[in-house]
């Protein structure tokens, strides 16, 4: 049976949205007839030390990450640098990715998706595709049962990986809105605020007793 390695590139480690999504991809892989996947968290030093070796030994790898400052987290780029010796090795694993972001639109993650596709090609890996999911932070707030459709889509992506690449129809369903609709843009621009985002952050600020400091600008010149 062919092996799957799930690499969690979230700096939050085990308690991350990326891991929540990756684990469903793994469930789908098992459902499709694949062997129980191995999971490594790049945020954990012990896992990070073995990640390159495990990458080289796996048949298929899915590397998941959050979008950080519009590209991969520094943690993930550090891992990518350690794969330089694998370029042109000839027996590299099939490689797919998962990118989740807090923005409501998928378009923010597309340049990173392009980079990852090129990175797979650079290594000489067969590229399985990239799962792009916006609105990721909602996963921390909402109970897991409220995201049943997303989990099922991710399982279906995992199952499709056993026989080939990610299914583009399912990928597009997971990605949702590529950009905001003209109506959404008008409503949000008029309000000059994004009410949903404000609600979430204001709640956190108040809970932390930091509400009065929310507009602090500590680096402003006097």
């Amino acid at each position, binding site marked *: 049976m062919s092996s799957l390695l799930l690499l969690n590139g*979230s*700096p*939050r480690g085990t308690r*991350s949205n990326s891991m929540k999504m990756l684990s469903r991809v793994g469930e789908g892989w098992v459902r499709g007839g694949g062997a129980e996947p191995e999971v490594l968290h790049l*945020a954990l030093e012990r896992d990070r030390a073995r990640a390159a070796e495990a990458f080289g030994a796996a048949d298929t790898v899915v590397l998941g990450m*959050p979008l*950080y*400052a*519009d*590209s*991969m*987290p*520094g*943690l993930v*780029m*550090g891992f*990518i*640098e350690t*794969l*330089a010796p694998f*370029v042109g090795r000839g027996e590299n694993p099939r490689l797919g990715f998962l990118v989740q972001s807090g*923005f*409501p*639109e998928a*378009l*923010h993650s597309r*340049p*990173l998706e*392009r*980079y990852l596709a*090129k*990175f797979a090609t*650079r290594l000489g890996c067969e590229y399985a595709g990239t799962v792009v999911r916006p609105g990721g932070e909602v996963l921390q707030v909402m109970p897991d049962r409220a995201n049943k459709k997303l989990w099922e889509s991710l399982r279906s992506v995992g199952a499709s990986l056993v026989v080939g690449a990610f299914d583009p129809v399912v990928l597009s369903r997971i990605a949702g809105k590529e*950009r*905001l609709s*003209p109506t959404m*843009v008008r409503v*949000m*621009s008029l309000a*000059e*605020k*994004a009410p949903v*985002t*404000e609600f979430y*952050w204001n709640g*956190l*600020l108040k809970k*932390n007793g*930091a509400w009065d*400091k*929310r*507009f*602090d*600008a*500590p*680096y*402003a*010149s006097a």
Partner: protein
Amino acid sequence: MKITILNGEPDSASSFDAYVHEVATRMATSGHDVETIELRDLDIKGCSGCWGCWAKTPGECVKRDDTEQTCRAIVDSDLVVLASPMTMGFTSALLKRMADQMIPLVHPYGQIEGGEMHHRPRYEHYSLMGLLLGAGPDTDAEDIEITQKMWSRTARNLKTRLAFTSVSDRPAKEVAHEFATVA
């Protein structure tokens, strides 16, 4: 003009590192106030996605490391040059770890810009940004384009823009002149 170079070259003995310093020296010679920050010498703890800088100590990373210097550079310079060798088709992990910790410079709150959701500014002024890339033996035009695209979006979310991208195959003198005139 105040120019800060954030040098993301991990290897102080590389030819690209010497090139970055030559560009800096030439800009200083033309009368600009140039500071080069060697990221390899800084204590950069790395963003762990805790949201502390947005919801606990607004505007500052809770880890209190040297990224305070690099954040300050963005709001008190006219131009910030991000310098890095190209490795595996992108800038160094060192540069990216630093950039991940720039999010305290903006609000978690969103606003619509050009039909897209972006972060709201925390400051009135953000420096222009430029990329100075050291091409590796396997770097091609597509790598440069993708790298530029990602950093342009980073700049946009930092309420500024990527004013130029330059690759190290050009003479330092020419590059220094161009950087200094763009801002």
